[in-house]
């Protein structure tokens, strides 16, 4: 390795270190300032809470065995709706790509369903599916499935026409075009849809829990705000941040593995 290349690598390492330290520093500074503002009562700690109060509330939840119950319930609903929306959405997109007639018939319905605020369907879902876990999963599913269908379908139909022609010229059938070209060519879109679905599934689950649940982080948020226990609301929000980030990283890991495979 030449001296010049060593210098170059050192510069890159230094740059990366500065970025990491800055990211971590901002987080520490944010919590420190927040704690200080609450401690010195520059703002009412009852309203703004504080990191130490959030920690105490979280520990209280832990000691009463409630922490993992609530986290588990929300995580379970989110993961189920995330997987269902990804699989169902991609499957429907494949069916619509396969049949141009079906695609054209479904276009106005997809447009209306996409524009519709899904929360409006909440009361209907509760009546049809019951005020339980199913209703929450259906709500979360509805929120992300339409966008999955539309994103995947749009990617499928914009697959390079010349490549499709090339495959047909090689005597390929439509199924071969699908699994040898259309699906692998759109893996990057699938990954970005997965990432979008992580966020949407959390939105759907929390929204569902607002409406019907007796457990879960959404329930804690509503309960905390109803009894004006802002520490609980803040603690729930922090837990949500941790869980959503963990799921996002899990999807990034899947992305890394897929990229390695392809």
């Amino acid at each position: 390795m030449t001296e010049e290349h060593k210098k170059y690598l050192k510069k890159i390492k230094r740059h990366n270190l500065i970025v990491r330290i800055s990211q971590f520093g901002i987080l520490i500074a944010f919590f420190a300032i927040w704690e200080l503002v609450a401690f010195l009562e520059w703002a009412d700690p009852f309203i703004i809470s504080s990191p130490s109060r959030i920690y105490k509330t979280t520990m209280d939840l832990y000691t009463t065995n409630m922490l993992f119950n609530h986290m588990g319930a929300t995580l379970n609903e989110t993961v189920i709706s995330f997987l269902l929306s990804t699989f169902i959405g991609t499957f429907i997109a494949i069916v619509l790509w396969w049949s141009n007639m079906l695609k054209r018939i479904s276009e106005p319905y997809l447009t209306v369903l996409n524009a519709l605020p899904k929360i409006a369907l909440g009361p209907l879902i509760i009546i049809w599916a019951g005020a339980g876990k199913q209703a929450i999963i259906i709500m979360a599913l509805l929120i992300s499935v339409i966008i999955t269908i539309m994103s995947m379908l749009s990617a499928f139909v914009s697959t390079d026409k010349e490549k499709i022609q090339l495959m047909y010229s090689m005597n390929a059938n439509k199924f071969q075009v699908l699994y040898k070209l259309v699906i692998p060519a759109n893996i990057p879109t699938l990954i970005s849809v997965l990432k979008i679905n992580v966020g949407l599934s959390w939105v759907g689950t929390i929204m569902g829990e607002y409406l019907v649940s007796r457990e879960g982080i959404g329930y804690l948020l509503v309960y905390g705000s109803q009894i004006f226990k802002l520490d609980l609301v803040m603690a729930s929000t922090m837990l949500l941040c941790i869980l959503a980030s963990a799921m996002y990283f899990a999807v990034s890991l899947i992305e890394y593995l897929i990229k390695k495979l392809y």
Partner: protein
Amino acid sequence: MAKLLEFEGVSFIYHSLENETPALDNITFGMEREEFVAIVGPSGSGKTTILSLLAGLLEPSSGSIKIDGKPIKEMRGKASLMPQRDQLFEWRSIIRNVTLGLEITRTNTAENKEYALSLLKKYGLGEFIKKRPSELSGGMRQRAALIRTLVTSPEILLLDEPFSALDFQTRLNVCNDVYSIIKEEKKTAVFVTHDISEAISMADKIIILTERPANIKGIINIDLNKNLTPLERREEPNFAGYFKTIWDELEAHNDRRT
């Protein structure tokens, strides 16, 4: 002896909601085995349509196309297309790109794979079989695309402006490579191009098309030394004469338009 390829009174019309556009009008020509035919003509004259018909992607509105005396419908896969850009699949290694046609036709036997490997080695890609297309130069990618066309052992190669995406220097080199591969493998080729020099330097025969709906304006037999490379053929004394003849034919069309 019957010709390998016979285009007999072929016409083709494109249909759209607004109108119908006749692309080809009564095209008739034939090709012998191992012949290299170039098709030149004004833009939009239907050159690519001829290749699409030969690849079985389109069906003629009237007329017939025969390969080895049999209707082209019964000979699917006998003519293999090399598109304008190499169209290698980035998620596949070079060897898996090259054997794509074999996978599709379920003829990915050990023998055929060995043939693909031997072609890759023979034409300088032996070290790159596990690489991704993005790791190859433009010229190497074109060679890989041509080998992908060759491994299914087609009767006719259909080359749709395969060098149009390359810079001039690479283009001249790739032209030499492609020409030598086709001659060594004793293949018959139909080559569509806008570039008159390229057509003269590679082809045994040049078909000049009229503007749309295309008809055949003339067929010129190129009598240049077949043992020379396309680059060397450009230095031949009668090269300029062929160029002028074809240029004049195409210019006559432009003059009529202006």
